[in-house]
């Protein structure tokens, strides 16, 4: 038990370290942007008709603390970030935590559902495909996997929109019906969300499913040929019991480990799919922040949050793996 505790603590420290490193990367990128927040804010004000001067910018810089050295600002940013406070948006002048609000959680929920969907399909289908010698099944699975690679999610989203407009005359976009958009959370709003969210979940899960299918199938085919499976079969274990208790348990480790990277892949597609389906989530905000208003504070916060959820998932899968597989625990601590 003590050993397990030490394992968890080591992993937590490693995850924390990764987060700090990532925050440094993100913060540096934010700093590299030509023009800082003060200039941007005042430039925006300028378009409203009021003139600005160099002194105004200096005063604004001091007010925002932009005159402090780089590492000091990074330190305060990261401290705030861990408490869920990312400061104010450069242009909208609203607190970012407030602005993101439950939009981020909504995005995360959609992405995690997509991930869950991908593995719910991929694990059983992949195992069955690896176990069977059916050429048709294997070839069609191969084709689906390749299509998942070749047809990026945003193209799939476009195609679905194309066909739904041709056949149903409806574009299937958005996350909420208009009457629920600004309403407080209720059961009815949740149901309304579900009736809209299945499409983005399916689209985001599409290529993750293709990847996961390939991983599961490859791992299972490797394991099935091994001697311990033959030995078990010789002892009279057969059918589903043989498949699930022997090779599947061995293949589980790498599969659990690949969860984090699949979430990463889903996040990659999130902003673009959000744009096509006109979702009102964090992905759409990210595009808004980047493509339209050049708001580095907001963009940095969103990227950091996305990465933090991947790191958190990686941490969770590490722990899960250690619970499932004692070899992993022991390999870390000797």
């Amino acid at each position, binding site marked *: 038990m003590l050993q397990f505790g030490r394992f968890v603590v080591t992993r937590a420290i490693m995850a924390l370290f*990764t987060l700090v490193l990532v925050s440094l*990367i993100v913060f540096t*990128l934010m700093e590299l942007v030509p023009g800082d927040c003060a200039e941007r804010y005042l430039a925006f004000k300028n378009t409203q008709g009021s003139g600005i001067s160099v002194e105004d910018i200096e005063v604004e810089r001091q007010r925002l603390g932009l005159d402090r050295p780089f590492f000091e600002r990074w330190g305060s940013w990261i401290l705030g970030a861990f408490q869920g406070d990312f400061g104010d948006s450069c242009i909208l002048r609203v607190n970012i935590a407030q602005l993101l609000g439950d939009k981020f959680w909504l995005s995360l929920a959609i992405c995690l559902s997509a991930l869950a969907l991908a593995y719910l399909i991929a694990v059983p289908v992949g195992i069955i495909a690896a176990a069977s010698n059916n050429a048709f099944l294997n070839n069609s699975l191969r084709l689906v996997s390749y299509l998942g690679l070749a047809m990026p999610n945003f*193209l799939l989203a476009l195609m679905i929109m194309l066909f739904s*407009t041709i056949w149903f005359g409806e574009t299937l976009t958005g996350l909420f019906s208009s009457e629920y958009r600004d309403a407080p959370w209720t059961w009815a709003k949740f149901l309304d969300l579900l009736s809209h969210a299945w499409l983005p979940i399916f689209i985001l899960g599409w290529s993750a499913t293709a990847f996961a299918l390939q991983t599961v199938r490859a791992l299972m085919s490797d394991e099935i040929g091994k001697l311990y499976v033959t030995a078990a079969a010789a002892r009279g274990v057969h059918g589903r019991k043989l498949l699930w208790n022997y090779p599947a348990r061995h293949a589980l480790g790498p599969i659990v480990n690949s969860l984090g990277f699949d979430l990463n892949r889903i*996040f*990659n597609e999130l902003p673009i799919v959000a744009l096509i389906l006109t979702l009102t989530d964090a992905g759409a905000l990210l595009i808004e922040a980047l*493509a339209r208003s050049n708001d580095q504070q907001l963009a940095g916060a*969103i*990227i950091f949050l996305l990465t933090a959820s991947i790191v958190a998932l990686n941490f969770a899968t590490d722990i899960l793996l250690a619970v499932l597989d004692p070899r992993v625990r022991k390999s870390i601590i000797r």
Partner: protein
Amino acid sequence: MSMNYKRDQRATALDQKAKEAYFTASQGQLIWARFKKQRAAMIAAVLLAAMVISGLFAPFLSPYDPTIAGRDKDYTNGAPQIPQFCDKNGCSMRPFIHAVERERSLATNFRWVTKINEDKRLYMQFFMKGDKYKLLGFIPGSVHLFGVDEGKIHLFGTDEDGQDIFSRTLHAVWTSLKVGSIGVFIAFVLALIIGGIAGYYGGWVDSVIQMITDAVRTVPAIPLFMAIAAFMPPELTAEARFFYISLLLGFINWPTLARRVRTHLLSERNQEYVLAAQLCGAPAGHVIRRHLLPSFTSYIIVDLVISFPYMVLSETALSFIGLGLKDPVSSLGVMLQKATSADVLLSYQWYFIPVIFFIVLVMSFVFVGDGLRDAADPY
């Protein structure tokens, strides 16, 4: 009897020869022999070669200039025109299309309406003079593979500015290939340097580099890429923008490759031939370049081919949201930008024809990469 003996002898000699050819074959010949046996990969390779060639000669193969200069202002949002041999007025040996007329009158409620005139034929001409272009960027020319004697032909239709979608598609394929190649090259150089150092030295150097690589890999690439691309100065020229985007693709995609290089190096660096070179006093750079890298060149090539589609797809995605390449450059992302509008979805579905080309392009890269991987993994 003796004839039989002779035949046998000849057969064994042939056999011997085949065996000898096998044992003395270079790595490349072996890979090619194994690659040839995979049908799917071979078909993909042929398709890919066709794509590369059509991209290379895009200015010649496409009837019009892909930019706004080659637009057909009388046929905007025009439907694809398919060459035919027969119509209600009989058949002809030379393929033709029907002329299109635009009219605006009381009958059309004063809007421009295009109408096909089924009685007027425009015959296809081959090797005809048209828009000027520079083949491969420096060979000037103005001959196009096909066209029609008067008016214009649009195999895949036109977009809202009247630009020929067929011409743009061919150029876009070439753009994707170029972006991908530059991106892969940059990622490759970075991966070699970073992965090479990590793998060769091992120990704490390796740990530190791995930690950083892993951190970079955790950040979702496309949002990060968007963040960097968004802050490019907007006044860049199309060429500079193109170069920046390729550069960025390379910078974002190196970690996976670097990891592969490192893994290969870690397993190879304890081999005897490395020790021998080191004992002879060879410096680290020499050992990496002349001894270690050649030991897994084929793996690296496979990795490069496999990472190519991701570059192409990232570029398309970025251009699509307006952060990548911009209008004078033809690229799938740029062409699809307008495709989300309701007008296009409802009435101008030919905007989506280029998508087929891209799926074929990406798929053939994936299949060729897979085939190469199987072929390169002999032992």
